[in-house]
């Protein structure tokens, strides 16, 4: 027989001021199964908790209902108190008579009555509670970092420096990401490559980091502490063990006119190439789409000239499997492309370029060696128009959000231009200037005041070519929406930051949620900004939202700290609120019919198949089984299961049913 204790908290006047707690205690004492019902001023205080502990021992309670505040507030407190008194913590439930009753209703009979009923509901539930035990899962102390940009590099280094193994996977031939493409960085104007390349080398040389460039995540199975990742190592065409990175093959390659991705199309590369001289690893890859050998079936010049015999033209993609305990997604961002701006002639006029292209022009290691030369004829532009918010904060482009970094890098671009072309004119069209960072506002002011960039508040409606000039038509709203027309030699669009094209499919592989713009979602916007709602998967950098470098680095270090925390013990303890498929004695074994419709419904792929065999090993039936590590306890399968073979611990069918019956 159930022996339930009910403990009613006054919460000072918070509850007792509205609810007649004495009447409630008396009424609760009469519920079937309740053997002890008391009220007290502050149940969560030490004396309050002691009352509960004493009653558990003295009255041999089999269940406890604390009627007080929201369980989201003090459930852990009271469960711990129960555990200390020797009662399984999951035999304690809370009736929320504060947030859901005393605080939201007027003082009176109806409110007291509601409190009584809320307690009755929980008494009926707790009678059906079963002792539950935390689930222990072993942890594989290796982290998988996806993406080798600054966020991924930072996360990998931090985790590795904390003493754990890291596998860093980068899709392109080299790590470095977008940051490596940048010329200088705001607000300090220090050289991006100067600060980044040492980090890249550190990654390559770190004994705890295994680097897979030119590789992608194929699939991820498993659960926190126990993921199994399959990584596709794309065929490089070069044996990494033999290649010394001498570069002869690159020099000899006959295909020399391929637009360089690294240079954002501003420069050219060969078919066998490294993205840039600072690439890590400094070993080339063969671009099979453009390589003469793969197009025509002959060439092999690289093979001929390679002294180390490192060229592998017949190399195939390889899938490797690794076990990891945590994943950091640091896959970065993309920018909005030319097809989205017909009104600006982006893609049509070679001198309308985007921010990244400008970075390459301004970069000392770029195709122009840092000289600002416009793409069409290589002349130095005398007038440059910079357009901030190209696509951002524009519902018509489907991007209502702010891309966050454009204000700053546009100021930087204007400044860099002015530093390089002293008599040039820089115009900046902007909507608002958002410079909310340390030394950011000062930086923008410098661009305007010291370097003389002309800031025009308003939007550009059209750009077209006339007599070899780009005519930029816009308005200056600060001058009463006066039309402005500028004859420019070059236009730089601060195109919106968007999620990578395959961010959605990555999110699905990782089973993390994502927002309507395909940025990966954090578990909580404020309190869990680096976690996802899939345990063991963390976020760093711009895959979560537009970010500048310090933010990306900070988040990466945050994620690394979370991973290091996770790896600090060899076992994980999880709340046992998970689904379970019933098992019964033969001949039934389980009421599961094996339709496996739950398998599809599970957001965590936690449903597995189990063969039930007889003594001779013949399969009698195949039934569902929940992987306790993967299950997060949402209960979608429980509602779906026609025969109720699945139940959710802590919210079982019987518990919920009886709660209802208590109404």
């Amino acid at each position, binding site marked *: 027989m159930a022996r339930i204790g009910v403990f009613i908290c006054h919460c000072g006047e918070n509850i007792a001021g509205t609810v007649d707690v004495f009447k409630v205690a008396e009424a609760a004492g*009469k519920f079937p199964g309740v053997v002890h019902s008391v009220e007290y001023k502050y149940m969560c205080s030490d004396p309050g908790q002691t009352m509960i502990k004493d009653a558990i021992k003295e009255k041999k309670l089999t269940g406890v209902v604390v009627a007080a505040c929201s369980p989201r507030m003090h459930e852990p407190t009271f469960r711990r108190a129960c555990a200390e008194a020797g009662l399984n913590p999951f035999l304690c439930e809370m009736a929320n008579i504060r947030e859901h009753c005393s605080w939201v209703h007027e003082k009176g009979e109806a409110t007291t009555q509601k409190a009584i009923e809320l307690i009755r509901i929980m008494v009926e539930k707790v009678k059906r509670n079963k002792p539950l035990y935390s689930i222990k899962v072993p942890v594989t102390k290796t982290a998988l970092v996806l993406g080798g940009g600054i966020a991924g590099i930072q996360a990998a280094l931090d985790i590795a420096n904390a003493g754990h193994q890291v596998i860093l996977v980068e899709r392109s031939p080299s790590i470095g990401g977008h940051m490596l493409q940048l010329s200088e960085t705001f607000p300090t104007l220090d050289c991006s490559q100067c600060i980044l390349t040492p980090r890249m080398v550190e990654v390559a040389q770190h004994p705890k980091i295994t680097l897979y460039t030119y590789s992608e995540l194929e699939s991820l199975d498993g659960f926190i502490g126990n993921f199994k990742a399959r990584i596709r190592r794309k065929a490089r065409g070069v044996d990494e063990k033999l290649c010394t990175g001498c570069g002869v093959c690159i020099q000899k390659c006959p295909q020399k006119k391929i637009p360089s991705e690294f240079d954002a199309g501003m420069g050219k590369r060969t078919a066998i190439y490294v993205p840039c001289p600072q690439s890590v690893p400094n070993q080339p890859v063969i671009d099979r789409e453009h390589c003469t050998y793969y197009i025509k079936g002959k060439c092999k010049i690289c093979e001929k000239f390679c002294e180390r015999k490192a060229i592998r033209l017949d190399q195939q993609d390889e899938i490797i499997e690794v076990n990891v305990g945590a994943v950091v997604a640091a896959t970065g961002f993309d920018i909005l492309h030319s097809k989205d701006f017909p009104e600006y002639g982006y893609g049509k006029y070679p001198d309308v370029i985007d921010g990244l292209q400008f970075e390459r022009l301004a970069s000392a290691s770029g195709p122009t060696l840092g000289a600002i030369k416009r793409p069409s004829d290589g002349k130095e532009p005398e007038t440059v128009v910079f357009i901030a918010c190209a696509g951002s904060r524009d519902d018509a482009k489907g991007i209502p959000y702010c891309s966050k970094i454009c204000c700053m890098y546009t100021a930087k671009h204007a400044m860099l231009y002015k530093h390089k072309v002293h008599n040039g004119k820089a115009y900046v069209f902007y909507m608002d200037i958002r410079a909310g960072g340390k030394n950011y506002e000062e930086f923008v002011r410098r661009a305007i005041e010291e370097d003389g960039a002309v800031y025009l508040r308003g939007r550009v409606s059209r750009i077209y070519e006339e007599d070899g000039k780009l005519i930029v038509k816009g308005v200056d709203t600060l001058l009463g929406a006066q039309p402005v027309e500028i004859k420019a030699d070059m236009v730089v669009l601060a195109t919106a930051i968007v999620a990578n094209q395959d961010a959605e499919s990555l999110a699905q592989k990782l089973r993390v949620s994502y927002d309507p713009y395909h940025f990966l979602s954090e578990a909580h916007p404020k309190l869990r900004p680096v976690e996802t709602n899939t345990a063991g998967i963390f976020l760093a950098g711009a895959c979560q939202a537009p970010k500048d470098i310090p933010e990306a680095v900070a988040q990466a270090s945050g994620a690394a700290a979370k991973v290091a925390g996770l790896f600090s013990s060899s076992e994980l303890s999880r709340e046992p609120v998970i689904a379970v498929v019933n098992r*019964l*004695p*033969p*001949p*039934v074994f389980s009421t599961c019919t094996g339709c496996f419709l739950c398998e599809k419904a599970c957001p965590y792929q936690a449903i597995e198949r189990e063969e039930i065999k007889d003594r001779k090993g013949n399969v009698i039936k195949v039934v569902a089984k929940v992987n306790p590590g993967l299950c997060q306890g949402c209960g979608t399968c429980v509602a779906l299961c026609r025969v109720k073979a699945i139940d959710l611990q802590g919210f079982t069918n019987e518990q919920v049913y009886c709660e209802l*019956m*208590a109404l």
Partner: protein
Amino acid sequence: MIIEKKLLKQDSVEKLFAKLKADGRRILAPKAQGDEIFFEQVASASEMAKDYIQTTLSPKGAVFPRVEALFRYQMEGKDVKIENNSEPQPTVIFGLRPCDAASFAILNSVFSWDYQDSQFKSRLAQTAAITVSCSRADEYCFCTSVGGSPGDTKGSDILLTRIGSGDYLAEILTEKGKAMVTLAPELFAEAPSEDKEKYLAKVPVKFDLKKLTEKLPEAFNNNELWMEQSLRCLGCGACAFVCPACVCFDIQDESKRESGVRLRCWDSCGFSLFTAHTSGHNPRPVQSQRWRQRVMHKFSYFNDRQKYLGCVGCGRCSRKCPADMNLLEHLKAIAEAR
């Protein structure tokens, strides 16, 4: 045993209904709902179905309802207050067939076998049967093979047989029947000297009952026989629920907070979980065994213990079987097997 023979004019049925109602009795009579005919409470004889061989459900619900409250309870603190079902209303079933009328004795033999089921008995005591004999039969009817006939009087209080004029020849068979006549003596005229036999349906005897009952005990172990017969059986409970003689029931408690009710509900041995134990073990795990149970129970065990057959040959089970399990055909096969 006939007390009296009378003539009930066809237009007097309505008046009889009025008198019965005035006496505080409810009248259950066949009423059409789409293609199906059910015994339902009627206010007037005009509501009755005109032409039917057999109703969809038997009239057993009048004495053994589909769902019946055995008692209700109310918890008051630590006390429990129990409230028994109130006395059933006096009921007249009108228009049932002789086979149905014969089933009351079968039901009674179970409900007053060792334990006297007071609720059933009081319902039975309060129920009177005005049976209408069969002028038509179909290929499913086999009352004559199990001891009945289209004009059989067993179990009826009054048996009406429609004669040439359209009026009814009324055989007053019991005290209950007589009491009903007493309510409206003016409606019951002098009986003509006609023989009802010529108005009755012809139902040939289709198998030898004696042979069947003799052979059943040894057929018990003939697994192949039961398997063959029942392969197409789907395991629903339609046969049991339309049967006038099936008595299996299930007890269900339904509660709402401090109050509740104990219900007795029809059940069927054809259900796969009918015999399932809590442990998961099921003594009749396959349908063939459940089919065998149905046949053995009705034609062998029942016969031994109750001195009745558990079947009146109404044919409902076969008519309604979604898989065309034809009881008559299967019984014949057993009776005629070597």
